[in-house]
Every structure is written in structure tokens, then in C-alpha cells.
């Protein structure tokens, strides 16, 4: 039997999909064939690991979904009768101004909370070949580090590339945002936004988060408005975040 066939057999055994005689034959081999027993243990733990990692990912997706649902419920607006609109508008302008001041000057924890609520590192969606020239090797290594959450090391790899590739600027920005080197993050997201490309929506959203982290609320609001106008997949989150910045009682 080839190794591939052995693996198939082991998978079926673990999934309880073998008939009794085949099952018994696997059990006999486990007792007598050391290499097979070794392969069995490896495949079993790898299958469990893939399942556990996938379950964790699905749980995180449901948690994000839950946050969105809770946010939508809490974000219900109260409508004013029309005759009170001028007063409401004037009051809300004053309130927003006060709030912006409050966010800027007084409430660092609230701002940090908002940032951590909305910030999630962007996943690596760039597929690379394992082979290639030096530059390609740096890219591969950079993205491997990025996948592992080693953002400082990934940034080092990306910085070695002499490139005008918008995606590298974007991921460099993402690395620096993750390591909280915000000015460098802003610079790189800005470079990504200099050309029209498929990561513009993402770059704009993360740029807004940079400003939020930096406590530059005016720029954060302006950038969030651009995200909304662009109609990117982040529009919904941007609208929600904008509401929370302008109205801290919503939460």
C-alpha cells in the first residue's frame, strides 16, 4: 500500500467509516507496524488541529456577526417631530463639537475602546508562489510572517522590496498599524491610495482607524465619510463607527 492509500484508510477509520473487517485490519496494523502507527498518530492530531482551528475561525465569525447585530439593535435612532428639527440640529451640532473635544482631550479610554472594537488585522489575501527570485522570496517570507502575526518581522521583509506595488504598501501599512507605528502606517496607506486599485477601500478604512488611534478625530471623521461615499464593504462599519464617534451614548 502506498502512503497516500494508508492515509485514506486512516482517515476513514478515524471518521468511523470503515466496515468491521477493514477496521480490525487497521487495528492489527497499529499493533504490528510501527511506521503505520506513527502515521496514524500524526494524521489523527492533524485532523483534530484542522478541526479545532476551523471551529475557532467560525466562532470568531459568529462573534463578529453578533457584534454587528448587537450594534444594529443599539443603534436604533429616535426620531424628533418635524417642528423640533431646527432645535435638534442646533443641539446636535453643539453636541458633536463638544463630543469631538471630549474625544480629543478627555477620553482616551473611550477612543481606545472604539479602536479595539473596530480594528482587526486584515488577512493575507495575496497568493504567492513558493519559488522565484530574491524579491519574490522576500515577499513570500513577508507574507508568511504576516500570516503568523509577526508584523514587525513582516514589515522588515516588505521594506526590503524595491517596489511600487500597491498591495505591498497596503500590507506595510497594516503591519505598522498592528505594531502601532501609526505615522508609518498612515504614510503607507496613503501611498496605496495614490493609485486606483482594488485595495483602496480597505486602505481608506484602515487609514481612518489610524487617525482614530492617533486621536485625530477631524481626519478620522473625514476619512470615514470617504469610506462611506466609496461604498466599499467597510461602509457599514464606517457608518456605525461614525455614529459612535458622534454619539457616544450609542453602545
Amino acid at each position, binding site marked *: 500500500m502506498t502512503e497516500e492509500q494508508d492515509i485514506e484508510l486512516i482517515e476513514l477509520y478515524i471518521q468511523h467509516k470503515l466496515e468491521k473487517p477493514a477496521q480490525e485490519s487497521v487495528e492489527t496494523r497499529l499493533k504490528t507496524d510501527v511506521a503505520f502507527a506513527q502515521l496514524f498518530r500524526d494524521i489523527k492530531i492533524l485532523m483534530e488541529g484542522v478541526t479545532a482551528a476551523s471551529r475557532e475561525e467560525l466562532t470568531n465569525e459568529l462573534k463578529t456577526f453578533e457584534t454587528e447585530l448587537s450594534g444594529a439593535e443599539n443603534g436604533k435612532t429616535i426620531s424628533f417631530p418635524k417642528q423640533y428639527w431646527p432645535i435638534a440640529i442646533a443641539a446636535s451640532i453643539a453636541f458633536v463639537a463638544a463630543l469631538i473635544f471630549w474625544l480629543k482631550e478627555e477620553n482616551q479610554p473611550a477612543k481606545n475602546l472604539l479602536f479595539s472594537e473596530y480594528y482587526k488585522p486584515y488577512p493575507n489575501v495575496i497568493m504567492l508562489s513558493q519559488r522565484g527570485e530574491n524579491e519574490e522570496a522576500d515577499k513570500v517570507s513577508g*507574507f508568511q510572517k504576516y500570516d503568523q502575526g509577526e508584523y514587525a518581522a513582516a514589515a522588515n521583509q516588505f521594506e526590503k522590496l524595491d517596489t511600487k506595488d500597491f498591495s505591498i504598501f497596503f500590507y506595510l501599512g497594516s503591519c505598522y498599524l498592528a505594531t502601532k507605528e501609526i505615522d508609518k502606517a498612515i504614510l503607507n496607506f496613503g501611498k496605496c491610495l495614490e493609485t486606483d486599485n482594488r485595495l483602496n477601500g480597505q486602505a481608506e478604512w484602515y487609514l481612518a482607524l489610524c487617525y482614530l488611534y492617533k486621536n485625530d478625530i477631524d481626519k478620522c471623521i473625514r476619512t470615514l465619510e470617504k469610506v462611506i461615499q466609496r461604498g466599499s464593504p467597510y461602509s457599514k462599519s464606517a457608518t456605525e463607527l461614525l455614529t459612535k464617534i458622534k454619539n457616544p451614548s450609542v453602545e
Partner: protein
Amino acid sequence: MFSIVEQIKLSGKGALAKLYQEHRKEFILWAIKSHHCDEDDAKDIYQATIISFYENVMSGQLSELSSSPKTYLFAIAKNKIREMQRTKGKRSTLEENYDIPEEMEEISDPELLRLTMLSLKQIGEPCKSLLQEVYYHQSSMSAIVTKLSYKNEDTAKSQKYKCLIRLRKIFKDLQIKQLGYDRRAGY
């Protein structure tokens, strides 16, 4: 009209989101009111329940519902609440109407499991998605061909084998690097 089980099999997570939303409010209220859970625990249990439902459907353990999805979900949840309360040292005073076995499998050495999860992160795409489709979502090779754009089932199968061998190699390297030795004999 398709049943929820068929919908999950056909569209996976899309149908799951719909199911999640459909019973969410009622579930949270029920868990808080009848089982004295706090809101965060209620949400965590609901998420774990939905995941169990999904896994039961995808593994083929649940091919048809003899009761409504809501009854099935709440039955799974009762076990999970009981488990949580046991862990927290509380005793459930509620009568059990259902007896569904705990579907979480017993796992191997947690340290090794952590390393396999790390190995999966390191292997990257397209291997990661392919292995997840095979082992977690338990998709058929024909479904994987469509989903991940392989040429045919043979190509997908051979790619899966290569990915598994690569994953095994990463895992072993990590084991030696992080644990300092090969702990295979220990599980």
C-alpha cells in the same frame, strides 16, 4: 422549499447566519430567564450551539430533523449550559427533556493540538482552505472542485495529499523547534 439542513449543506455559512439570527433573541432571553445565564454567557452558548448544529449537519450525523430547528438547538444548548454550570461549579435545577450526547470529541495533547493549529496558519493558502474543506466542512471532492476551482477531483485529491504531507512536515519541525523534542510517542 429546502429544509434548514439542506440549506446549510447547499450554502454553508450563509444559511447558518440566517439560522443564527432567527432564534437569537428568543434564545438569549430563554438562557437568561430559565437558566440564570448572564448575557455574555448566553451569547457564547448560542454560538457554540450553532457551531455544533453546523458540524452535525456537515458530518452527516444530522440529515433530517424530527423536530423544529429551534427545538433541536435548544436541546443542544441545554447540554452546553449544564456543562458550563458544572464547570463553574453551579448546579442546574432544571429538568432535562432531551438527552443529546456531548458532541465535542475528546482531543489529544493540548500542546500538540496548539502546534497543529499553528502549522495550519503557517501552511497558508490554498492548502489551508483545502484541508479545512476536507476535514472540517467535510465537503465532497466534487464540491471542493467547484468551490476552490480545481481542474477535477483527481487534481483536488492529489493536492490534498500534498498539502497534508506539507502540514505534517511543518508540524514536526515545529514540534522539535518549540518543544525541543519529538513528542509523538506521548499521544
